[in-house]
């Protein structure tokens, strides 16, 4: 999985400008999330995709041409913290199955955030792989519905990627 993190000015239409570019240049992405940063009027867009380095580099270069994009870089999964959140509504009518589910919840450090006679709503946060593994387990009990965020990510270490206002990070510069 490749993670692209873009710091953008929070102007009307910026998400449209980013997604329009991704679509028209034929890039295939897996998830995209948009949300606030520590700064006012500055948002972070996190994109995950599969693809070879040349494709990712081309997407980073194209996105960095959008004037609203303040900074963009690819995050190395090993050097970043990244999380996804899922809400899963599982059927839990049978008491024995219900206790199995609660067991898995404890193993995966998920939580029950709503319970009814026949179902549980479970929240799980983690790396996408962990969330997927948990989801696969829950499928055995009967998933009624599910909602997942995309991935959000930060580079490890003390540096802030949204504090600088340079147009692009080193990874979007030409390799010369």
């Amino acid at each position, binding site marked *: 999985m490749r993670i692209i993190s873009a710091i*953008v*000015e929070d*102007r*009307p*239409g910026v998400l*449209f*400008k980013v997604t*329009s*570019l991704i679509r*028209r240049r034929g890039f295939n992405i897996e998830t995209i999330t948009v949300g606030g940063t520590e700064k006012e009027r500055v948002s972070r867009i996190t994109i995950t995709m599969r693809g070879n380095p*040349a494709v990712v*580099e*081309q997407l980073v*270069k*194209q996105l*960095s*041409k*959008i*004037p*609203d*994009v*303040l*900074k963009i870089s690819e995050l190395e999964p090993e050097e970043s913290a990244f999380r996804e959140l899922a809400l899963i509504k599982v059927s839990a009518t049978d008491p024995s199955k219900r206790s199995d589910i609660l067991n898995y919840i404890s193993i995966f450090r998920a939580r029950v955030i709503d319970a009814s006679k026949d179902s549980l709503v479970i929240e799980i946060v983690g790396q996408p792989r962990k969330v997927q593994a948990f989801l696969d387990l829950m499928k055995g009990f009967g998933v009624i519905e599910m909602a997942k965020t995309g991935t959000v990510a930060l580079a490890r270490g003390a540096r802030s990627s949204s504090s600088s*206002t*340079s*147009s*692009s990070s080193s990874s*979007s*510069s*030409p*390799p*010369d």
Partner: protein
Amino acid sequence: MRVSGAKALVEALKDEKVEVIFGIPGGSTIPFYDALYECAEKGELRHILARHEQCAAHMADGYARAKGIPGVCTATSGPGATNLVTGIAVAHMDSSPVVAITGQVPRSMIGKDAFQEADIVGIATPITKYAFQISKASEIPDTMKAAFMLANTNRKGPVLVDIPKDVFYEEVDYMEAERVRIGGYVIKSGDPHPYSIKRAVGLVLESERPLIIAGGGVIASNASAELARLAEIIPAPVATTLMGKGSIPEVHPLSLGMIGMHGKGEANMAAEEADLLIAVGMRFNDRTVGRMEKFGENAKIIHIDIDPAEIGKNLGVDVPIVADARKALAALADRLIEVGIRKKENEWSRRIAELKEKYREFYNSEESRGSLSPKRVMKTLRSAIPERSIVTTGVGQNQMWAALHFQVLQPRTFITSGGLGAMGFGFPASLGVKVACPDRPVFNIDGDGSFLMTEQDLATAVVENIPTVTIVMDNRVLGMVRQWQCMFCEKRYSETDLGKVPDFVKLAEAYGAEGIRVEDYGGLESAIRRSVDAEVPVVIDVPVSPDEKVLPMVPPGKTLREVVWFG
């Protein structure tokens, strides 16, 4: 200064030293045109009333390319704005600085499918460098400053500014915007990185068969002198893309002419045989390189471009130089002189001379199929008009005949829709060019199909007194598609026969322009000479056989070596 939004827009345009606007008014831009009314009275900000918004956009584009400064067009909301789209897309593909101003329905009506509402910011975003929508009059000065800055810096291109009608009425304190910031956009110095120059110099010194391929970026950065200097120092022959025509005088001993699908034999063969390609201000378009994965297979490639996203987009290269073409070419030449490159007569120059000689006869032959030979029409035009004349073209066979056989001698004197290939571009573009350069003769080489897409703006040319000359290569067919049908569809001519085209002489006269029909080369030459100083627009109808082809041709998906000479 307390003014209306409309007046603020006019002031902002004057602050940007805009002299001409091409456009058509409509419901949403009535207040803007009301502010322009005073300008007309004072003789400021000339407005040219087009007959179709597409033409207004092409005019602004032609103006921008001829003069090297942004061209401005305007249209009302809804259909006015959507009619601009083709023109904006042309400017986008050819990196031409055009600022398009559109009216929008009042703010309270946006999103309600109001009368003449279209989401032009949404529509234009993929075909502009940026599309703004202004939400209050106080944003006008900064936004206009930003629009011109974006359009005319780094890799140039069109910018759209959408202004709701009620914003034009809103009052604002007008002050000229100073430097504006827009997001992460940085105006680049364009200086090449010394290390990439060093590596490029290494490749040049090692190479035995270098070839320069110059694209539109050389013209955009006014780098013609630097291009010729580098070519002479190495020495390396120079091929150009369609957009690069004019970057080097095509009579220069090192000029090979255009490369690509309809490129010259010597240019294409040189690209196949070269061991080093110095590609500058070009983007390895499919029409330029033929079969992409085979292009430059046996060569090292140096790629100079101002846009880092062009590096590696279509083709992997050995040495990328992200820089302004002029600065990079100058730095490369300087460095080569410092390291003491020695000019030598070598096998490569002999091979180039041999290639040129080999194909000379083909270009000079003038077999015609019953009417005038397009080749000779182009040569006649070149010999009959002054060097500084500017030529625009339509799209299709007319454009490729011009590209192959009309020698361009100065930069910014060959203006064509290269990337988008929009039929109908040539005539309105010629009007914009003439407005930009009133002292130069302006000729539009067009096809009958192409001209018929935008000929209604003959009305504009006549009323606004913009005397350009259109040469209609009149073959009564959509010739380029017909040529493909002939060569690749077993002559199944599906819907390419126009049947009867209008009488172009009468058509011109109906608008108050002059129409001339020529029957032979003598008549053609005298018609052209007569038109050079014409005071009214002229249309010269040149009969051409529908069976004339553009040759040579590299069939799509083939390498440049697999050229077809006869068809």
